[in-house]
């Protein structure tokens, strides 16, 4: 025995080394399938507050936008903790790099109790749901989420867009019933228009002329050519904003037009070519922000506040308020394209898919469901968005408004997680006074006639199909994004359009179209 100790130690080391690493990454996922565990469930009150008799603690992973402060300092979560007896500890990740952290959580299986403002994609929800990392919520919703259930009954498209073919719901969306919160307004600088004696642009050609005037005629009057005629969020966000003028729609959460129940992916179409050529013209003549492809979100928001931009896109006028230049801007209707198209891009009612999900490590799924459900009521949503009555907001005709003294502090986005987008809650007329003030309502009125009649959200596929779509879209989307950027920036000549189409074909875009067609047909059948 004695002379073998060297070998023994060494092999012990090897074995322990292996098992050490094995332990870390090999904890099997628990599957508690939404079934109530007796002890935990008894603690949960079926209605009213507090939600639980004995205080409990939940860990939630969340995304914080550049303008947000720490979630624990927000009055909504402080007050709600007292109300509900549930203490939530937020694990915060900034918007840049959020997806990376989210995926690492799942890959390493070190899960929080829930994901808040998670921005899960349908594929992620299916993948992590069918693997047992996220629990199915449909039974919990029926039993513990009266507010959400009521909304799902009123707007049937909510249920169809979040239910998998197997009938599970793994993630719940942010729900937007007020129309103006589903569109990006087209804000134009009316002071500049007036100064140069121009009218609101009606067509894409008008728009081109207006932007040229913004660039050349020094509308801000400082003698320097420093005006930015048109800007937008980073990169290809400019495409969906202008696509409606060229007859391109975004059905089923993808670059899809629906005509007579036929799904048509339009990336290789001539209409898309016209759109890209138009954008290329704007970009190469320096009418479109030259930093479009490199700027970050914060830079874009800052530009809105300077008053030195002519035309840009945002859902609200909040970023302009900070710079006190909001009076400079009015919303305009979508410009009419060369073929007479005037379509406004609008998000579906279940706007933010995957805003909230519960993981398999959560010991109190019932309490968690009740916790989140409150925010799908007008009352809870008011609390989330407006903070404390008197301190942060006041009621006028039953509608909450931020108090002027509070607005003057400029801390609005520090007290609510809805600023920055994608929070799991209800946005209705009752709580939209801030994002839907008269100026925004005016702008929305101009868009209303051009809103699509139905906007289908991304369909849910079964896991195998979702995987197939993912493999196809990985290549196709990457290629489309890269080539479109190059077309717009002029790094790729439109002589290569044929090659672009051929490559899309080679990447099996037809098969992708077929898969979406099947999903759409299923959707129709369900009704």
């Amino acid at each position, binding site marked *: 025995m004695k002379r073998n100790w*060297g070998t023994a130690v060494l092999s012990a080391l090897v074995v322990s080394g292996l098992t050490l690493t094995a332990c870390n990454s090999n904890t099997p*996922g628990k599957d508690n399938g939404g079934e109530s565990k007796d002890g935990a469930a008894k603690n949960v009150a079926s209605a009213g507050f507090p939600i639980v008799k004995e205080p409990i603690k939940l860990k939630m992973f969340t995304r914080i936008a550049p303008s947000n402060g720490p979630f624990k300092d927000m009055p909504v979560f402080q007050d709600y903790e007292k109300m509900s007896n549930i203490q939530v500890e937020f694990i915060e990740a900034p918007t840049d790099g959020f997806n990376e952290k989210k995926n690492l959580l799942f890959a390493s299986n070190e899960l929080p109790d829930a994901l808040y403002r998670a921005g899960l994609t349908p594929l992620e929800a299916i993948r992590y749901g069918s693997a047992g990392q996220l629990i199915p919520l449909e039974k919990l919703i029926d039993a513990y989420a009266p507010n959400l259930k009521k909304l799902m009954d009123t707007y049937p498209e909510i249920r169809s867009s979040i239910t998998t073919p197997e009938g599970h719901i793994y993630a719940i969306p942010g729900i937007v019933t007020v129309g103006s919160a589903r569109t990006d307004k087209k804000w134009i600088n009316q002071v500049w228009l007036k100064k140069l004696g121009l009218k609101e642009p009606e067509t894409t050609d008008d728009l081109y002329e207006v932007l040229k005037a913004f660039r050349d005629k020094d509308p801000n009057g400082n003698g320097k050519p420093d005006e930015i005629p048109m800007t937008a969020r980073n990169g290809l966000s400019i495409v969906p904003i202008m696509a409606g003028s060229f007859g391109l729609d975004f059905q089923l959460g993808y670059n899809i037009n629906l005509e007579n129940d036929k799904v048509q992916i339009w990336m290789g179409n001539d209409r898309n070519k016209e759109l890209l050529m138009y954008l290329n013209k704007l970009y190469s003549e320096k009418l479109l922000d030259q930093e479009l492809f490199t700027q970050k979100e914060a830079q874009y928001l800052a530009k809105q506040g300077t008053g030195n931009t002519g035309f840009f896109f945002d859902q609200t006028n909040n970023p302009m308020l900070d710079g006190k230049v909001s009076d400079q801007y009015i919303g305009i209707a979508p410009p009419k394209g060369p073929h007479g198209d005037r379509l406004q891009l609008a998000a579906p009612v279940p706007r933010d898919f995957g805003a909230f999900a519960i993981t398999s490590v959560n010991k109190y799924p019932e309490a968690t469901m009740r916790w989140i459900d409150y925010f799908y009521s007008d009352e809870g949503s008011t609390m989330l968005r407006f903070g404390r009555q008197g301190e942060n907001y006041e009621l006028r005709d039953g509608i909450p408004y931020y108090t002027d003294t509070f607005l003057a502090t400029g801390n609005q986005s520090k007290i609510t997680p809805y600023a920055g987008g994608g929070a799991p809650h209800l946005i209705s007329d009752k709580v939209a006074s801030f994002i839907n003030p008269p100026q925004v309502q005016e702008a929305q009125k101009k868009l209303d006639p051009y809103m699509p009649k139905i906007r289908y959200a991304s369909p849910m596929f079964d896991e195998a199909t979702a995987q197939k779509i993912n493999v196809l879209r990985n290549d196709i989307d990457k290629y489309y994004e890269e080539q479109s950027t190059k077309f717009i*920036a002029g790094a790729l000549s439109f002589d290569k359009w044929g090659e672009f189409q051929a490559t899309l074909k080679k990447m099996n875009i037809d098969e992708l179209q077929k898969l979406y067609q099947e999903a759409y047909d299923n959707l129709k059948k369900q009704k």
Partner: protein
Amino acid sequence: MKSTASTAGAASRSKPGRSGLLKAMASRYDLYLMLLIPVVWYLVFHYGPLYGLQIAFKNFSPARGILGSKWVGLDHFERFVESYYFWRLLWNTVSINLFSLLFAFPIPILLALLINEIRSKAFSKIVQNVTYIPHFVSVVVMVGMLMLFLSPRGGPVNAIIQAFGAEPVRFLDSAAWFKTIFIGSNIWQNMGWQSIIYIAALSGVNPQLYEAAKMDGASRLRRIWHVSLPGILPVIVILLILDVGHFMNVGFEKILLMQNNLNLESSDVISTFVYTTGILKGEYSYTAAIGLFNSVVNLALLILVNRFARKKAETSLW
């Protein structure tokens, strides 16, 4: 490897050998304890994770764990090789490193030879310091500096170009410029640092050789060619092999930071593709396969170069 295997075999066969080894270990137990630390380090952090490589051949699902996921054979490798991006990724990865080797490798040697020829000690120290300080600039800052210097609006480089009446060049948004900028800035940043080892090697060359060459009437260039260079050749070869050792994954962070949709054509390399597809889109098995492919290519290259070096220059790693 061969020799250690045979001594181990001998030790196990003959008792005196083994007890001798044990005795030696016992008498030097403190040294062996110190050895234990790196051995454990390697086992835990370098060999332990190797077992996770199997996810390249499986459909990895985090919930099922590495061992519990289903085997799919070579599916992921096939998908990669058949992918539209395969040749572009391979070419970019290889070419960036090939050009680096071609241009960035000889420059520190030249610099070391030059510094070695400087007569004034003080001046040579200054040159050395000035050239190696950029090495301490972090990658993030470095890329920030590149963006500032090369910016089409207000960047000094474009200011000069405009002063000559030409249009400003969008260096960082251009696929054609990417490799030049990437490799050029690498040279600027690292040549001084890398030359240090050559300078050290040069100082080890026997001064009598120079004296003798001088006596024979060799010019300066001749002395460099016939004395200095052969003197440091073993070091050059070893460093070359080491460079090839990480041939396929040089500069990941820097490339990722410099990357955008407009230069993707020439900046998309295997390691950044692994990051964007694997980490950001959660395709772990697929990218593990790509990473493994990358490593296998690299290992093959390393063995080739090492063999070549052993034959031609009679210097090698093993």
